[in-house]
């Protein structure tokens, strides 16, 4: 319990630091959103008119006061208004977040599926050339630009083969190609870690024991190796969240989807401070929560850690064989 409370405290500190750092950095940028908005030559405003508008919007409030105002707003769940469009930021996030969460979760599941299939197939295959090919794929996936992949998928599957529409698609159709686009680069690090873990576990002494008892290759992989290889993969899942957010920016823009990524892209180009501030804090919150979840999941997946957190036991000696495997 104490452990959990400490973790939550840590999370709050991380969030505050993220908030403060974002505030300072956004203020330090040259220009500001009001200037970008009203000095847009297409509006044709004169210098005097812009000065009057700046006064109306009260840009000259001292920074500490602005900081306090923004922070107290955030604590009360009020993220202010977008400077570019005047829309409440909470409304923008409420429309965008569900779209991005659906996209990211579906893409993540597909990525796991791709990664697991690649890792298992490459471990099971008898042909060295096929194994080499499958193991080389993640390297290719990771270097494919999301932007390019999105456009190629649209051109091939939507415009040439006409399998799914991109424009005027229903919510389900609208997910297919973006999910594929986003899943490919995320599956790559997952597959790499999984392949490496499988290799390591396969060399462990207990695997030789199980093999010696006559278990088939496939059986060993499923029952013994996989369970042990899963832990490092869960660790990387937390880190992959960043990849998901980055990928969503590009994917949503290419596909013209509503979402946090698209919102980010627009807010950055207009230097829309309130929107950016909210997105950064929200992303930080997502990171903190994911890592918290991963931390709490460890003991569930690895009994050694379960014992560790229960008592005041010392870390298990490095030489201890992996128990679950040996039990088979």
């Amino acid at each position, binding site marked *: 319990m104490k452990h959990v409370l400490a973790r939550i405290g840590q999370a709050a500190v991380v969030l505050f630091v993220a908030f403060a750092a974002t505030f300072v950095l956004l203020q330090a*940028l*040259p*220009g*500001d959103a009001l*200037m*970008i*908005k*009203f*000095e*847009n*030559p*297409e*509006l*044709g*405003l*004169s*210098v*005097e*008119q812009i000065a*009057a*508008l700046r006064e*109306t*919007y009260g840009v000259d409030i001292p920074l500490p006061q602005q900081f306090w105002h923004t922070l107290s707003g955030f604590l009360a769940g009020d993220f202010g*208004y*977008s400077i*570019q*469009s*005047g*829309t*409440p930021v909470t*409304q*923008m996030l409420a*429309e*965008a977040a569900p779209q991005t969460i659906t996209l990211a979760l579906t893409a993540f599941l597909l990525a796991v599926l791709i990664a697991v299939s690649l890792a298992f197939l490459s471990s099971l295959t008898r042909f060295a050339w096929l194994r080499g090919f499958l193991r080389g794929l993640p390297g290719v996936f990771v270097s494919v630009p999301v932007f390019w992949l999105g*456009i190629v998928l*649209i*051109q091939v599957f*939507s*415009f*040439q083969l*006409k399998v799914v*529409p*991109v*424009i*005027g698609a229903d919510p389900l159709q609208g997910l297919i190609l973006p999910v594929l686009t986003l899943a490919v680069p995320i599956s790559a690090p997952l597959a790499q870690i999984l392949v490496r873990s499988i290799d390591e576990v396969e060399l462990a002494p207990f695997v030789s024991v199980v093999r010696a008892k006559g278990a088939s290759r496939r059986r060993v992989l499923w029952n013994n190796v996989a369970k042990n290889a899963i832990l490092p993969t869960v660790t990387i899942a937390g880190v992959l969240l960043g990849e998901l957010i980055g990928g969503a920016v590009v994917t949503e*823009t*290419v*596909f*013209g*989807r*509503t979402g946090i990524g*698209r*919102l980010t892209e*627009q807010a950055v*180009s*207009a*230097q829309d401070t309130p929107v950016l501030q909210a997105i950064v804090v929200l992303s930080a919150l997502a990171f903190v929560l994911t890592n918290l979840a991963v931390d709490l999941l460890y003991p569930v997946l690895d009994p050694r850690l379960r014992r560790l957190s229960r008592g005041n036991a010392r870390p298990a000696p490095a030489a201890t064989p992996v128990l679950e495997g040996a039990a088979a």
Partner: protein
Amino acid sequence: MSRITRTLAAATAALATAALLAACAGTAAPEAGGGADSATPVSGGTLTYLEYQAFTNLYPPQAGFYPNGAVVGNVAARLTYQNPESLEIEPWIADSWEVNADATEYTFTLRDGVTFSDGTPVDAAAVAKNFDVYGLGNKELALTISEAINNYASSEVVDASTVKFHFSAPAPGFLQATSTINSGILSPATLDLPLEKFGAGNAAAIIGAGPFVISDEKLGTELTFTARDDYDWAPPSLTHQGRAYLDKIHLIVTPEDSVRIGGLTSGQADYVRYVQAFDEAAVESAGFTLYGPQTRGVNNSLNLRFTNPLLSDLRVRQALVAGVNAQEIVDTLFTSNYPVATSSLSSTALGYKDESEHLAFDPKKSAKLLDAAGWTEGADGIREKDGTRLSLDVYEAKPQPLSKQTLELVSQQLKAIGVELNVKAADAGSYAEDIKDPLKTPLYHSMVGRADLDVIKSQFHTKNRNVLLSNDTKLDALLETVASEPDPAKRLDADAAVQDYLAEQAYVIPLFEEPQVYGAADYVKGVEFESVGRPVFYDVWLNK
């Protein structure tokens, strides 16, 4: 109509004819609505229209931004209608009007039975309120003054269908201003909203008297327009009267060029805006129609900020003008929809005067001028004078088509005459800050479209866009004459004088006449544009 009205109308028509004659070299005019098609227009259907960017604000004076203009223009009716072919000003919400001799008083008689989409009448009080806001602004609500309206003083409601506007100085451009999207008439309640409420997420609350209303909005990605069944006040000169042919328009924001073009050619969309020059061939070869309506204003140009010491010498500016080969730019990067500029104004703009004698590409002349000005070639081929290199910066202008590529080609051309041009990219904040400084941005890439003589004042006057960051009082005085000379013929002369002055002083390097390029499927009929190339959906119908 009074005699003055008729005189003005005749003068406008004469100007328009001149402009059209001059425009012969340009692209074919967009096909006229319904009537030009052999088939009879049919009602019904939904048009899928792809837009390049999301709209930012629907307050009409800020509708100069193209994505804003397409929305405001189809939702809000105007007092008058500018015929996109003749550029003549015709009745719309106003049946008729009178202008006093020095153009300081305008009296409009309104058509009966016109209503906003919320049911309230479009009466004199509503119209008066609109122009009070557009002419004077509302500081408290942050509603800005329209750049199309000069010298506005006050309004006067004479009776329910008569409204009079007073000006502190002659405002000959006002009649045309009442026809522009920037003067879209909105309901009085809408004009009580602060500027933020004209932004994204609130589009359906913007109430006008146009043929369409916004019925649905998906924040930042999609808008649905629905035709008003009771719309019955189209400009009388149109063959089509009554409600719009289309039932609905889905406007979908598709920022990625290849997706927008592919969406059209694969049949997922009917009509798209912003076909890049490099995509034009793909659209045409797939059997789709390209439309390239001109923006009829100040050309796509490089403005030479002469308050930068390097550009203070007339000879240096003349050398730059002669060193840029606009024909090569158009041939390399653009298409026949982008005619080479022959003045600071477009040849399809009102008041255009040919200045090509000042704009000829002549690198030998450049070299001579730079030699005479004391700039001699340094070790790396870039000219120097007293230890200073002739090195200038220019920022990529995101709103201009292919700005980066254009500037890079200009940079190569200028290198040949010993001038270094550094093409820089910047984030929006740095850009907004640096373009206001002649030392950081000695060359500024921009254009502006509006089919009235006042457009040149909008671009160059120190109290408006001031793209030159000028301190030239003579230029200001010439521009003020354009905006305040009530005599149409003298006003035309004043406009020519400005173009002469800009060319003689080598303040501007005009590059090309900028169009808006659209692509549409052949079953999309009645495609039309208002006078500066924004789409008008009223006459559009689907032949399928």
